[in-house]
């Protein structure tokens, strides 16, 4: 199985998003690099709106992810509630 990944800017918003990703993807690895945070996982990774909202304590639109996103790897599937990354092997 190959790794999917997501990199976010290391900023105030993204820290909550990373917390949410960590909670929803217990198998993921979080790597801190200068100015950015890389999150990777084997095969599948999901960002859930509900969990992010819970961490931030406010409404959060899935598409706000674009403001902090640096890069990603994997096939993207997004709707109003979540964004997932996966590989088809």
């Amino acid at each position, binding site marked *: 199985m*190959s*790794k*999917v*990944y997501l*990199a976010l*800017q290391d900023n105030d918003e993204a820290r909550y998003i990373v917390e949410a990703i960590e909670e929803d993807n217990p198998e993921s690895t979080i790597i801190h*690099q*200068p*100015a*950015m945070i890389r999150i990777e996982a084997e095969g599948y990774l999901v960002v859930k709106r509900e969990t992010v909202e819970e961490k931030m304590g406010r409404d959060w639109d*899935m*598409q*706000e992810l*674009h*403001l*902090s*996103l*640096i*890069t*990603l*790897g*994997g*096939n*993207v*599937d*997004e*709707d*109003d509630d979540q964004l997932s990354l996966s*590989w*088809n*092997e």
Partner: protein
Amino acid sequence: MNKNKVTTMAAKKLSLKEKYSLLTRDLDWEFSYQDRKDAFPMEEFEGIKITDWSKWEDPFRLTMDAYWKYQAEKEKKLYAILDAFAQNNGHLNVSDPRYVNAIKLFLTGISPQEYQAHQGFAHIGRQYGGVGARIACQMQSIDELRHVQTQVHAMSQFNKYFDGFQSWSNMQDRVWYLSVPTSFFHDARSAGPFEFLVAIGFSFEYVLTNLLFVPFMSGAAYNGDMATVTFGFSAQSDEARHMTLGLEVIKFLLEQHEDNVPIVQKWIDKWFWRGTRLLTLVGMMMDYMLPNKVMSWKEAWEVYFEEAGGALFKDLARYGITMPKYAALVEKEKEHISHQAWWTFYTHGHATGFHTWIPTDEELDWLSEKYPETFDKYYRPRWEMAKKLEAEGKRFYTKALPQLCTTCQIPMLFTEMDDPTQIAYRDTVYNGDRYHFCSDGCKDIFHDEPEKYVQSWLPVHQILQGNCGGPGVEQVLSDYYHFNVGADNMDMKGSPDEKRWKQWKGVA
């Protein structure tokens, strides 16, 4: 409750999928009195077969209202930081004045290509019969325009304090090493719309731009350059969308018709090779031009190509797509190319629009550690020799103009990979003229479309033909390239940049 609020609430009832579908499906129309082929005249000549445009899907399902909203927010954040950078004399906080030379190469080498990407996407966006593709290209075209603007703004601050930034737009079309990225984009833009999309959207954006933006911008952060980090990551936030689009494009083309598979594979092979050659400049920036280093070029290649690209090509295997041709060769090249490139720039440092230098002893040790297989054996001895010459007051500059590869336009600096002391030369005769190449990859590309590449504008040929002023190199540099000779070029040691820095910092 005001009227606007009502509208927003009503709009909220539509899901992302519904909104995207309304934008991309219902915006098109049937051609009743015109032939569809006349409306989209470039859609067929490349041999790509599209049976159903409605299968085009943007996974982010970005609609125009959301696009403007989020892009505006990105811009506000970016310009607030650029203002803060300028107001607080951010240029004084960079790790070392040598660092600024990486930014000179970025502004002169990469930023003008953002503008070419903008023009390219604006052009091809018009050529597709499907609305989804047209909208995606429109957004990307606007993104690329934003990138060039933010980069020029960010770097205008450096232009007030450092040499070498003043004539970037003039330099783009003329300077010997800048013709490498410029000709890369000219090649893509003069191809058909589908090849352009595979070249830039997939091969460049998906497979390779991570290597340009991510480790390099992280490096900018590590070197105290807030302005570059900010425009870099702001641009990169668009790249995540571009990359996703690039991958969707490939899947779309491969799913539309099996006849598309060999055409797409050929383009992937070509543009992967063109891209890796172009990224030699980035490898050199990472290993030699960043005083505080984040990761080596080799490490970046392993993470962002071998690992990420490996996963990607496994995913595409179900369509019959294989790893790009020469990927195995490139795996060997990661040990060598950054060293070969910086040596070439160092020895041609009188003809570059930025400063070059010998790595410090600490940096040489870092390179030895990061490249245990190759650095001490092949490259460190050269730098030890350069140090000795410099100490004797004989800093080395070559007198010769380099021979260029007809395809990638990089000087012939790459070696055979199984013999790193032998420069690789390939050549071919076409219509009675001999053409030279740095590699089998570049020769293959020429052979596939010789009529295209015989027209290459090769800077060294042009100088020797008298088309760039002269007669001497110095006049070419000053009158044709618009360098401030003696300030922009030559070694970092003794440069006006270095003198000013020492004054600002109060050191002798």
